[in-house]
């Protein structure tokens, strides 16, 4: 374990160096929220890969595949396909029509206070539902990997992210993501080459060995997701939910124009997609080399599969190479968690400081320097709240929150965003209707489903997106129609649409 601590200390020192460098370059609100829109497409592509590969992806997909076969591969594929939606309809319109947040887009379309408040609610709900399980996962993982207690792990992770975000803003958060993405891809490439070298570089052997060891059933779907509708719901949640995640949306404001936003999505699709595809092979390799019994013995959810595989490939338990590989992968896992919680903290403090305080409470009349100061202070408060929630979440089943985050993103944020961008008749009533129905139906269905109530579930699906997403769209449409026509808003739509497609802003 000491190898992990040494490697992680090096990563931490690099991150703090980045934060110091970034803090000296962060003066204006645009610097803090969006790195002044001056990142390149490649930088943003790496940072997106850092954002999107949470510990759930880095450790979880490999673990699921090693224990449940094909269902793990489905979990890994969805997050890549989801970027098709982002690339085709979200990334460029967002870059063209907003400044820092989802709230900015809704506000410039609707120009009403109520719709801004609805956008803030959606952002905060998704971010906290995402942040809490990440913090809980961080505590468990850091404890497992380094041996410090859960509560100290929470405090350590929380304080690190507060330092990154409050001092370095978007620039530091971005570079922490980039460093983590490079380390993660590097670790993945090393593991892939070492694993393939054991089967004479023929990946088909992984499938043959797995079939010989666990039977053909292992390579079929349905071992993890028993209900067929859950399989489809998971797919829909991914494909539409990613486009509704505020901390991912924010990344498109860090590049100068729509062309760079487009290019950064292509970057992330190749970087993250290649990694996701590799996790399927890692899972099969781990099931073959390490064995499911040893994987379950280390962690029954399979979250330590990738570190165990790395240890095996390095030479096994107790060998220098084995411990070095284990330490490296474990340290990258901790860096992964830190990068993701930092992005969530930044996105949440942006919406509280910029959307809520500056635009909702103060009507935009806040001086630039003061806004930055408020955003930094908000980041500290959000970070402390995250530490408290993380400590409270110990031992609680937080799996339902992971589902909830992506489900609310797909059912509330996505319908409201897409209709704001492209539907002339959409109005404030629709924003409120879509946000409320999407949010409430996701929360209620997740709470009465099997993830929360086990065998006493009142509703059969773990992931309710297949029902809550159409409900969210319905709420948005019905809300728009009930609210009556807003002629001023419809008249402005031509100008707004021009901005969505060309970035030429109305005066």
């Amino acid at each position, binding site marked *: 374990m000491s190898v992990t601590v040494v490697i992680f200390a090096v990563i931490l020192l690099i991150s703090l160096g980045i934060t110091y460098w970034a803090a000296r370059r962060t003066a204006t609100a645009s610097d803090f929220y969006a790195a002044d829109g001056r990142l390149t497409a490649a930088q943003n592509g790496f940072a997106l890969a850092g954002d999107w590969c949470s510990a759930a992806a880095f450790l979880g997909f490999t673990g699921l595949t090693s224990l449940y076969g094909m269902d793990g591969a489905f979990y890994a594929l969805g997050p890549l396909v989801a970027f098709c939606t982002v690339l085709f309809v979200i990334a460029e319109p967002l870059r063209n029509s907003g400044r820092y947040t989802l709230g900015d887009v809704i506000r410039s379309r609707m120009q009403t206070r109520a719709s801004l408040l609805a956008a803030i609610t959606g952002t905060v709900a998704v971010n906290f539902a995402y942040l809490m399980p990440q913090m809980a996962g961080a505590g468990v993982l850091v404890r497992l990997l380094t041996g410090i207690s859960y509560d100290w792990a929470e405090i350590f992770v929380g304080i690190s992210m507060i330092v990154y975000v409050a001092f370095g803003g978007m620039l530091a958060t971005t570079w922490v993501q980039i460093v983590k993405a490079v380390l993660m891809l590097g670790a993945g490439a090393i593991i892939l080459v070492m694993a393939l070298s054991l089967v004479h570089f023929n990946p088909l052997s992984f499938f043959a060995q797995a079939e010989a060891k666990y039977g053909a059933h292992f390579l079929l779907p349905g071992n993890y997701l028993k209900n067929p509708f859950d399989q489809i719901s998971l797919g829909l949640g991914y494909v539409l939910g990613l486009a509704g995640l505020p901390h991912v949306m924010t990344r498109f404001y860090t590049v100068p124009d729509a062309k760079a936003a487009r290019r950064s999505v292509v970057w992330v699709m190749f970087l993250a997609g290649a990694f996701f*595809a590799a996790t399927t092979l890692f899972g099969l390799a781990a099931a073959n080399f390490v064995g499911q019994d040893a994987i379950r013995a280390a962690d029954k959810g399979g979250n330590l599969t990738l570190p165990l595989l790395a240890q095996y490939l390095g030479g096994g338990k107790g060998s220098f190479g084995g411990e070095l590989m284990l330490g490296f992968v474990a340290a990258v896992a901790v860096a992964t968690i830190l990068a993701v919680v930092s992005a969530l903290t930044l996105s949440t403090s942006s919406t509280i400081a910029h959307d809520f305080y500056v635009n909702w409470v103060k009507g935009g009349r806040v001086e630039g320097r003061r806004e930055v100061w408020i955003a930094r202070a908000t980041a500290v408060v959000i970070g402390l709240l995250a530490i408290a929630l993380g400590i409270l979440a110990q031992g609680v089943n937080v799996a339902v929150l992971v589902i909830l985050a992506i489900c609310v993103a797909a059912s509330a944020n996505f319908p409201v965003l897409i209709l704001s961008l492209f539907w002339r008749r959409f109005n404030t009533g629709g924003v409120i209707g879509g946000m409320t129905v999407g949010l409430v139906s996701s929360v209620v269905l997740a709470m009465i489903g099997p993830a929360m109530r086990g065998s006493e579930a009142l509703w059969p699906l773990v992931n309710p997106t297949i029902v809550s997403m159409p409900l969210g769209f319905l709420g948005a449409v019905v809300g728009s129609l009930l609210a009556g026509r807003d002629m001023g808003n419809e008249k402005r739509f031509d100008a707004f649409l021009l901005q969505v497609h060309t970035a030429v802003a109305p005066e």
Partner: protein
Amino acid sequence: MARDEARLEAAQAALQSLVAAKLRFLVPMSIIFMVGYIGLTVIAGFAKGLLGVKIVGSLNLGFALIGLNYVLSWALALVYERIANKIFDPLASRAAASGRRSAA
């Protein structure tokens, strides 16, 4: 406000041809990836046995289609970037230019 309206009217025609071009390409491309991916989850849910059909050695149809979905997503991304650079961007700068010109 009047200046805004004049500017918009001039930009409208160019904007409409941009939107039409986007729809012409993006609707079929979206159908391809949605059918490819959601279709696969439907088969996984309701016709498991089909995905167990062996293709090469122990590699079954399910894993082969998952692999195909990766390739399809990457191919669509590259195709989109090419179309956007060659077709959407020139139309967008025309709409933007006519928007700005009538504003000046």
